[in-house]
């Protein structure tokens, strides 16, 4: 038995045997869904349909239905794209980077976080597609051999984006599914209905749980983790290149890659918190996703939030230090111009509010954390809005300065992506285990209360 420092609090509360873990996690998959689930799914699906309707309306009539104009070529669409990509950062971060760093607390949340990643990246990927003026010809962007010998422009960051996002989506999907295989095998074994057994058997690729299976599974997971870890960093780096390689003041900034990556992890953890605080309650998983987990995530939020804050301040400093009048104006305009309200929402939500987490009590307070996570989600959306719109609306020639206001079509498309996201999420919690059972079991022996013996001081949990 491995020695575990008694100071660490257990990752699993309650007296859980392996069988308990299986039953607890599988409960939503096995049981009939409740009313709330149906209501949630219906609302999400309707929202998704409305969003799809707005998208079709846009494709039919043109981007002119949006508020973007000759000066501000990208508005909510690219703001939403970057925001969703940012959110879609964290799943793979948790499962790959935290795996490599042997952070055991990741096991309770990685499955859901990865699923969230997939759905968020799908939502994100939608925006670059629909913001194109001629979506049916969007395939021009792929380097396929053709008789005209035309190739895409490999200098364009937008092209890099396409590769980065598709690669990330594929690797994340593989990684997520890889982790699911043993759990799918477990579900199959527990299923009573024949057809369900068959389906899960198929999905688990005939998982038998033999030592050879496990050995291959483990090594494959490690390889994928190795592949995914750099991708976590590269995706948002490349997304940031869309801006950083341009010449627009406020975009053309070398600090963008690390700033974007930490911002993405920041917003991603906020979104995981938003979702998990609700999910653990709704699915009775409080003993698996403990306040300790929440606290760990809050710590990441302070770290990344502070990096983001430093980045904001560095930007301001560099704008002044560069001596470039356009650059200076861009930042003065951010803070004091017609979109100053967006800037100050961003500053408050992203820089000031996470600093409250230095207080341990607040860090472990679920209600506070939930509220804060929403704040950060809003703040990070405004960060992207500030970058995309505020930089563009007043660039070099004052004659072309303009204002931007979204139309209802843009708003509906954004809401629609929430619909899509939650539709997938609701289906996900019904058909797949929300917690990686096999992985939790692997840490249960070392970190669950049952196995830790009585030497551990038990702290009273308030928020059960």
């Amino acid at each position, binding site marked *: 038995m491995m020695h575990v420092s008694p100071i660490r609090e257990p990752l699993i509360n309650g007296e859980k045997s392996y069988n308990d873990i299986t039953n607890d996690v599988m409960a939503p998959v096995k049981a009939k869904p409740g009313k709330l689930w149906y209501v949630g799914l219906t609302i999400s699906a309707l929202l998704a349909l409305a969003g799809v309707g707005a998208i079709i309306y846009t494709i*039919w*009539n*043109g*981007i*002119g*239905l949006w*508020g*973007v*104009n*000759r*000066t501000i*070529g*990208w508005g909510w669409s690219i703001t939403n794209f970057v925001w969703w990509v940012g959110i879609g950062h964290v799943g793979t971060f948790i499962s790959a980077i935290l795996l490599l760093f042997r952070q055991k607390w990741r096991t309770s949340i990685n499955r859901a976080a990865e699923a969230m990643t997939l759905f968020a990246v799908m939502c994100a990927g939608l925006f*670059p597609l629909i*913001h*194109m*003026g*001629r*979506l*049916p*010809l*969007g395939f*021009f*962007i792929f380097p396929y051999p053709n008789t005209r010998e*035309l*190739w*895409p*422009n490999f*200098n*364009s*960051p*937008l*092209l890099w984006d*396409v590769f980065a996002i598709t690669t990330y989506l594929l690797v994340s999907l593989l990684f997520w599914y890889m982790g699911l295989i043993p759990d799918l095998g477990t579900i199959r074994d527990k299923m009573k209905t024949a057809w369900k057994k068959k389906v899960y058997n198929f999905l688990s690729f005939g998982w038998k749980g033999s030592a050879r299976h496990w050995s291959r599974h483990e090594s494959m997971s490690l390889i994928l983790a190795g592949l995914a870890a750099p991708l976590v960093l590269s995706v948002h780096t490349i997304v940031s290149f*869309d801006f950083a*390689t*341009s*010449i*627009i003041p406020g975009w053309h900034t070398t600090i963008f890659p690390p700033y974007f990556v930490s911002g993405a992890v920041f917003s991603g953890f906020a979104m995981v918190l938003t979702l998990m605080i609700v999910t653990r309650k709704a699915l009775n998983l409080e003993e698996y996703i403990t306040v300790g987990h929440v606290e760990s995530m809050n710590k990441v939020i302070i770290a990344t939030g502070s990096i983001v804050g430093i980045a904001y301040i560095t930007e301001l400093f560099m704008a002044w230090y560069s001596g470039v*009048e*356009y650059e200076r*104006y861009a930042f003065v305009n951010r803070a004091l111009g017609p979109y100053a309200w967006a800037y100050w929402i961003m500053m408050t939500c992203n820089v000031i509010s996470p600093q409250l987490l230095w207080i341990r009590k607040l860090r472990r307070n679920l209600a506070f954390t939930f509220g804060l996570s929403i704040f950060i989600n809003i703040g990070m959306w405004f960060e992207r809005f500030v970058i995309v719109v505020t930089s*563009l609306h*007043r*660039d*070099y*020639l*004052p*004659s*072309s*300065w*303009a*204002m931007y206001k979204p139309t209802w079509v843009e708003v509906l498309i954004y809401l629609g992506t929430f619909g899509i996201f939650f539709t997938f999420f609701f289906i996900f919690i019904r058909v797949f285990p929300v917690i990686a059972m096999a992985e939790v079991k692997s840490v249960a022996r070392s970190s669950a209360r049952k196995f830790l013996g009585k030497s551990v001081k038990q702290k009273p949990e308030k928020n059960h």
Partner: protein
Amino acid sequence: MSEEKKYWHLLEEFEPVKDIRLPKGPEEVTSPVSRRNFLKALGLGTASAALIASCKRPVEKAIPYFIKPEEIAPGKAVYYASSYFSQNEYCNVLVKVRDSRPIKLEPNPKSQVTPNGTSGKVQASVMDVYNINRYEHPLKDGEPVSWEDADNEIKNQLRNLANEGQTILLITPTLISPSTKKLIAEFVSTFGAEWHQYDAVPMNGYREANLRVFGTDAIPEYHFDKADCIVSVGCDFLGTWLSPIEFTRQYAHRRDLHRENPNLNKHYQIEAGMSLTGSNADDRIKVEREDYGKILAYLHNKITLSSSTTATTNIQFPQETANALDNVAKTLLQNKGNSLLVCGDNNPDHQVLVNSINQTLGNIGKTIRFGRNYNHYRGTEEWFERLSNANPRAVILWDVNPIYNHPESEKIKDAIENASLTVSLHSLPDETAELCRYVLPSTGYLECWDDAEYKTGIYSVMQPTLHKLFDSRQAQETLLTWLGNENSWADYIKNHWNTNYFPLQNQNTDQERYWVEILRNGEFVSDNTETSPSFNSGEIGIALNNSVSENSGEGFTVELVENVNIGTGHGPLNPWLQECPDPVTRIAWGNYASISPRLAREMEIKNGDVVLIGDMPGIPAFVQPGQADKTISIALGYGRRSGIPEDLVTGVNAFPLTKIKNGFRNYSSSGFNIKKTGEFEKLALVQGHQSMEGRPIVRVATYEEWKENPAAGNEMHEKVKHHLHSLYEKHDYPGHKWGMAIDLNKCIGCSACVLACNTENNIPVVGKKEVSRAHEMHWLRIDRYYTGNEENPEVVRQPVMCQHCDNAPCENVCPVAATNHSDEGLNQMAYNRCIGTRYCNNNCPYKVRRFNWLDYTGADAIPNNRYDPANMTLDLPRMRHNPDVTVRAKGVIEKCSFCVQRIQKEKLDAKKEGRPMQDGKLKSACQQACPADAIVFGDLNDPNSKVSKLMKDPRNYHLLEELHTLPSVGYLTKIKNKS
């Protein structure tokens, strides 16, 4: 073969040859799905799938010539010399005709009046012939009628009325066609009719003043190029006054610093509202509109101090204004004989003073010359008196719209309705034509024959360039028919020319040959003797007294102005002109009340707040820097309702505010109150920000500074040069490298280039709503910035189009390489390749790229999504498209191409003729239309080309050159002649 005789020599051969093929197998016969059929079906399926899938429309209605007409080569443009005359604006033009359709108007370099440029109105007028609202056939009481019936009925009635001695009125706008005048004289004598000319914005006050002072009612020639000092009192001579195309050329000539002896003129503008001319002045003196008379009297006093005519009454001005006016008088006196004072007021008293000042300064015969007098602006107010008092039984209206543009429209309406015979000879419906019993539609000017004598002794022709589109008949033909003249109108003109003008020349002895040459050249100039009018000082005292005693009164003064593009609002309300933003306010689609910043602050009025002025319907306000505090300026020409599509109804009609005093129209009246209504109307303002924010965008220096240092104001150019380094290899331009130089000192902002670009490049019209959402599509815009204080700012302008950067920021960000660099330095757009990410647009520091937000053109493959409020995509207006330029589909980025189609044509022409390209022969559309010659286009690889030389001028700089985008467009600093 069957008809050939067959010879046989063996009996066997006589037998028919048996089919030696194998008998058909059963499966081959019975199976309907043969290999061939299968392949056919497959082929058809693939082809139709490909057809359906490829989002292209099949070519419709392509009918080849059975016998090709000699002069028409498909794909080759033919040019016909013709003349434009409308709303008292004249331009001699070449009509570019492609495949029997006029598609563009270009200046006629052989013309004496307008050899080098046009106005925006001229450029846009080509669309008027394709106007969808034109009358398609004659009407009687709104019902179609045949020409014969209508003619017979009208002829009988006219004859009866003539026999009864009743009044018959023929009202036309100013006509400058000598043949038409002759014809009308015949008509008048035959039917005992009266002919009156009517201008919505007349100049009869000028004619009256000239009659009083010089004994002739002629409007003389003005020579702005000979004046070292120009003083304009509220006269927009670069935009709308008398002959702006001509004056712009003259004015810009004196702003050209590349001449041997550059001698910049000095231009003072004394005005209330900011006019196009005022925005170009070296010194603009802001005064109230009501004070124009007093100012003229003041200047008169100062200048003619020694002369006996002075009536020195006390004229009080604020100290600042008085000093400025003293300075003006001093400069005028220093430039005796080389100065010019003009005033834009139709008040004869004011013009008498102007004449007196110019006479005292010795300008008559130098900068003002009698002899080649202007023949336009002949309109008077007599017709109104006759119409309302003489009880006319017949009223024939030809292209006049007094119901819209006369303050007493109710009276006119009653008079017209009382007449027993009312005939309209309009080609387009309008408020007045609608009242007429008979509508005998006239043709568009590109469909008909005509001639013109714009200035005395300068004759020109108009020739048809298009077969009549509708069942219309030229008004002159109608008159000929009524007169029973069997001759065609073309013959009538020809006869007139042969009898009157042929003898005036001796180059051609053959009349036919003479006529052909006239048609080729477009203009015929006869010798002319200058006259020196006598000067009568008797009227000056009265004029002075009248001017000084003008009572400014309480309340605000409303000044009615003409917008450079819309003019008097006559005709079809061309969508191109409507969409072209005003060069001063940069507002398109509609008029507004310009108020001073101080008034706006006091009354808390913001741009677009609807205000009530007098009895006028609510009009949005616009805060205009440099506007006089007590003067509100409103543009005429808006608020038309009839004969135009619903979506084009825009603005408020300001004509009811005009005042007619002693037979002279006055375009300002005082005693108004201004009241906020609380409503708001979004203005289609294309430039919301007025200041350069201290950025080196338009670089300005004074004339004195420039004389010391030709790079004055442009010091940054040298500095930046040394900071620019690149890691990348430079582009290679082995052949040509196209470039453009724009002289900011010559550009006056008239927007002719913008409209030329629109016509040349098939730029869609998107309408007021889209323009107000910053969705305008213009490839070329004229930025306008204010510097200095808002009370009376300095104005600078800058035409901006794609800069064709060598380091183009747009090129490297396009994911599909739809925008790329040519080896001639062009930044090109492959529309077919564009997927519309708009990344290029974001990354363009000049913001010159335009995105097709909606299906503005009808080129989109998706049905039922066209957005075309101005009806520019219907079949008729589409006939005007330039076939050399692709019509862009929805979702595609577009931008200035440096008129690549023109480059290509000139290159091919040079290649065919086996010669190198000549500098100056290749002109971009904007350059060609510029009456100021401010734009020069050419090959930068040719060290002797004009553009290369300009690029080496110390005044040359590139816009945002510190970004190292290496633009191919250069700007030459603006040099102001400040005192």
